[in-house]
């Protein structure tokens, strides 16, 4: 029997039909509504104009920083601080559930593995110290969550993200630059943006969605796009002007 099924997938032309057929069968068996048929939403965030200018001077030593004479300096890249979120679509209950496993948010030396770590509300996140020195972490805005917790190398501390659309700022006690952010979201229909601006949200139910962008501590105002998710993969091109990035505000 197994061999016969395998043979059904020998030719690609036959394979799509068979897969669709099998999926319908499974859906009927599992009782999933036909409207929940999902596909990926992919996209890319672009800035117009593309160059955002020099990165801000966050602090200064005794002398002003100097551009190297060999190559143009890098431009500001806010994309790693962005999370693309789909809202307003047919969200199934399963998507609102936090994952069954504990998520890890790793501290690697003087920064976290990523500056913004989005999770579904209710997710348990363990802060893991992957650096070689001990750190004392705290959440200054919510002291009851992480209150000067000392993390030795390879040490862990578990927190639970309770609130949606709110970041939890995590800082180290003895440095000013080290910080990370936990972002609580209502469901799993969101994705981090990589350094080139690309993102992908898997298995989005069919329907009309509104795409929004969370940047650092709040939504990018005026940056929204309607997305029709159908039976085919959706590609989204989102263009943002630099002034939108600078004008971010936390959601009220």
């Amino acid at each position, binding site marked *: 029997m197994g061999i016969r099924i395998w043979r059904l997938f020998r030719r690609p032309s036959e394979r799509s039909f068979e897969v669709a057929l099998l999926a319908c069968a499974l859906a009927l068996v599992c009782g999933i509504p036909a409207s929940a048929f999902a596909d990926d939403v992919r996209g890319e965030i672009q800035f117009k104009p593309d160059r955002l200018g*020099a*990165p801000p*001077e*966050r*602090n*200064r*030593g*005794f*002398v*002003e*920083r*100097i*551009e*190297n004479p*060999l*190559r*143009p*300096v*890098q431009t500001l890249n806010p994309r790693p601080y962005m999370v693309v979120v789909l809202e307003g679509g047919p969200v199934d209950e399963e998507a609102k559930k936090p994952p069954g496993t504990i998520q890890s948010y790793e501290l*690697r*030396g*003087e*920064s976290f593995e990523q500056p913004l770590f989005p999770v579904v509300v209710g997710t348990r996140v363990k802060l893991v110290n992957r*650096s*070689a*020195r*001990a750190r004392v972490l705290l959440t200054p805005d919510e002291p009851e969550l992480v209150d000067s917790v000392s993390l030795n*190398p390879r040490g862990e501390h578990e927190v639970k993200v309770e609130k949606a659309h709110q970041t939890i700022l995590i800082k180290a006690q*003895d*440095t*000013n*630059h*080290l910080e990370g952010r936990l972002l609580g979201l209502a469901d799993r229909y969101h994705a981090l943006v990589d350094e080139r601006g690309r993102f992908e949200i898997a298995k989005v139910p069919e329907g009309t969605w509104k795409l929004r962008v969370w940047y650092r501590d709040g939504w990018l105002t005026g940056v929204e796009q309607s997305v029709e998710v159908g039976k085919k993969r959706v590609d989204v091109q989102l263009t943002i002007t630099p002034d939108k990035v600078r004008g971010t505000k936390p959601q009220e």
Partner: protein
Amino acid sequence: MFLSKIWFFLVAVAGATALTIALLLPRPSERQRAADEQQRITTACDVVNILLRTNARSRIDLAGKFARAEQDLASILGPEGKNQTISEDGAKNGRKAAAELLESTTGTKPSFIILVDIQGRVVARVGMQSDALAERDTLAGYYLVDDALDGYLRDDLWIIDKELYLVAASPVIGTKYAGAIIIGHRMDKALAEQLVKPLGVDVNFYADGQLMIGTSTASVHKDVGARYARVSAAESPLAEDCHTFEPFRVQLGDEAYAAQIGRLPGEAGERGGFFAVYTKSAPSLGVMGTLDTAKQEDLSFANFPWITLGIGFVLTVAVGMLLMILESDRPLRRLASVAVKVAKDEQDRFDEEAHRGKFGSIARSVNIRLDKMEREAKAKKTDLDDLLGPPSASALPLAGPGTPARPAKPPPPSEFKFTSGPARAETSPPPPPLPLTPTRAHTPPPVPPVPVTPIAAAGSAPAVPPPLADPPDSEEDEVVFRRVFQEFLQTKKECGESTSNLTYEQFASKLRKNRESLRAKHGCEEVRFQVYVKDGKAALKATPVKDA
């Protein structure tokens, strides 16, 4: 004494002024010194800031030089940036290259060199044994590292394991950005001393509310920390702190320090980093302290106006002595001399006009007393005085035998009058003496008998004459007395005075008493009586005659 008093007042004013100046002079001097001290500490703070900036520029240059060194760091860091993890070979090559760079450094060698790939991960490090900044750790996140990976050369201050590091970084560039090199100089005591050695001050570096490193063990940290807390939020540029903030004084036991602070930039500054420049203040001297600090050469003739001071002193003393001699000593000697003469009876009384001021008062007072004593002595002769006028022996020149009596001088205001009436001697000079000088050899002419009538003082009520108890007179005396009596009667009549109460016995008795009194007083043998008219009334004067 007036001028002496003025002089001593002026001397006292000059002395008080000198003392005031002596007490006051150290204060402006101390204020000036404090101002100089503040200026000096401000300048020192400024210089430290400038040296730190210059040092930062040098470190940036060194990091840039390392990034472009022949060790070709880009070829080491570039591939590692693409790997999931740092390879052992990459770390080994990186350590070797960093060690060579460290060795090649002339001058002050960095405390550490760290090579990071484009992801900010530590590929290799040399010169540091701390757990911090370990290999394979991510240093991305440090503002300095992020900026270096973005293509900037810059400096910063890091606090690693409670030590302050002056850090600089440069991007490592091959065909594209490959990573960065970070060098760090630990701020140790030698480096701190190097900063302030030419300034003659101390410097301490603070962060996280505690001392990081300093050139002195003076525990001024609490006061300095309190000062920093007051100015830490100032919005002025850090480079202007030394001029913006007021220098201040720190008291540490008996010692005071002038201090100034400047905020540190970078990550250390965000953790309350600052430096304090301070120097020990000279103690407050005051007058005695100023004298204690005087040196031998300060009192030399070249530096001190000894001659002027000496001349001034001598002049002051001389003027004071002169005024004392003129106003006190000489008048006193003159008064004493007169007093001796009065005591020796060479002079009747003090010449009040010859003495001034208090001495004149003394003379007047003594004269008054003398006059009073004389009045008291004469009080017993009131009867005769009433009748005959006073025997002005002391006021008249003693006429020797054959010497014509000179007219008496007008008596001074305090002189006791011997006249019988209120007439004043100066209004009517006495007449020339009558040629009635009784002498023992002289035989007086016969005197007609005088009727005896009761005697009464002029203007007084008639009184019963007392019985005569006088010794009997010689014939010569009797003759003289009767003649004088006759002349006196005649003169009184001529003056229109009453003679009804005048009897020869009373008249003769008074003459005898008067004569005896003058004899006792002047030691003369003979007394001459003269009748004269005074103020229109008959008067009688007795004059002692010295023996020939």
